[in-house]
């Protein structure tokens, strides 16, 4: 028994540390999603135009997703920030990021010169101003946050902690 005690305390410590990592992942992914959505909500035409500029979906479908995506981002961001349904929100956030990465990579591969439109803006820009690699790296980081939360949903200061 005396040998077990240090092990238990180490496990508890790493548990505590990981719950802080979880908080960081939640705030990073949730914060970015919330901000990205909130910036775009007042400018629905821009958001729809940014979506159309990827040339991946039929025009009216692209516009439709452009209109609703900002709201979806805000909602998902809120859930993550508050720490509600963390596991599922993390997974959805990660999958959303994979979708974004795929869309940006495809635009890059097809030789389009567009802004990702992630935080407003969007549409065609000068080829010298494209920042595909940075956008993809950022989204990979955010996707990792999401997958981490899916695998280890426990985190500090989460509403999920209530009532367990």
């Amino acid at each position, binding site marked *: 028994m005396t040998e077990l005690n240090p092990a238990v305390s180490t496990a*508890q410590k790493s548990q505590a540390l990981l719950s802080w990592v979880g908080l960081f992942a939640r705030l990073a992914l949730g914060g970015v999603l919330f901000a990205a959505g909130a910036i775009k909500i007042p400018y629905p035409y821009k958001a729809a135009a940014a979506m159309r500029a990827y040339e991946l979906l039929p025009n*009216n479908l692209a516009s439709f997703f452009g209109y609703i995506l900002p709201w979806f981002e805000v909602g998902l961001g809120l859930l993550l920030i508050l720490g509600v349904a963390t596991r599922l929100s993390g997974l959805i956030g990660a999958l959303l990021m994979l979708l974004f990465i795929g869309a940006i990579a495809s635009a890059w591969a097809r030789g389009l010169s567009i802004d990702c439109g992630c935080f407003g803006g969007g549409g065609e820009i000068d080829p010298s101003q494209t920042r595909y690699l940075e956008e993809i790296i950022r989204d990979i980081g955010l996707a990792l946050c999401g997958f981490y939360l899916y695998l280890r949903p426990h985190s500090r200061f989460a509403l999920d902690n209530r009532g367990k």
Partner: protein
Amino acid sequence: MASKNRGPQRGGRDNQPDPITRWIVIGMVALVVVIGAIFTVVSNRSAENVALPPGASKDDGYGIVFNADKTPTINIWEDFQCPSCKRFEDINGGRISELITQGKAKVVFNTLSFLGPESVLAGMGGGCAADQGKFVEYKKFLYQNQQQEGSGTWTKQYVISMAAAMGLDENKFATCLNTEKYKKWLTNVSAAGGAANINGTPTYVINGEVIESDDQGVNYYTAEGFNAQLARFGIN
């Protein structure tokens, strides 16, 4: 709410099952998302039986048409707050007016309003100016007095005073703007712009062909550059 959270659960009096709060939060967030999304989709849809300014035509993306029977057709998609639109207007606005008065082309002004509330005000004012037969003059005056995008300078009062300053009937214009007579018209123009895949301003379309500036040596921000494009469609 978070005051009872103390990291990893160790049981205890405060850690009783409480799924209610979670579900309330999930429900509220879902409600906001769904209502917001529906509102955005619905409020950006084109509507029938909308008050159109004189000269506006549904078949031309609800734009205001000059010389309906002439060819070629030039569609000018613009937002009165957009700096590049002003740049074009400063250089080629006179040429466009010339094309209209000389009957060298059908010119359609499609007023987008996607750069914020000031764009909507200025755009509605465009309809009100068209009521008085002064759309082109109004647009020119606005570009001359363009402010920093989103600066908040263009209030209703300010737009009315601009209209008065350029010689429009102030009372008529004020009534038109204050009642937002042409707000839905602007929505229809925007919906048409979406359908026409117009993703930025300014966008110039001649006979259905989008003219891209700074693409393959095209630069319509010069008189020569723009004239070269017009020449491709037989306008000299």
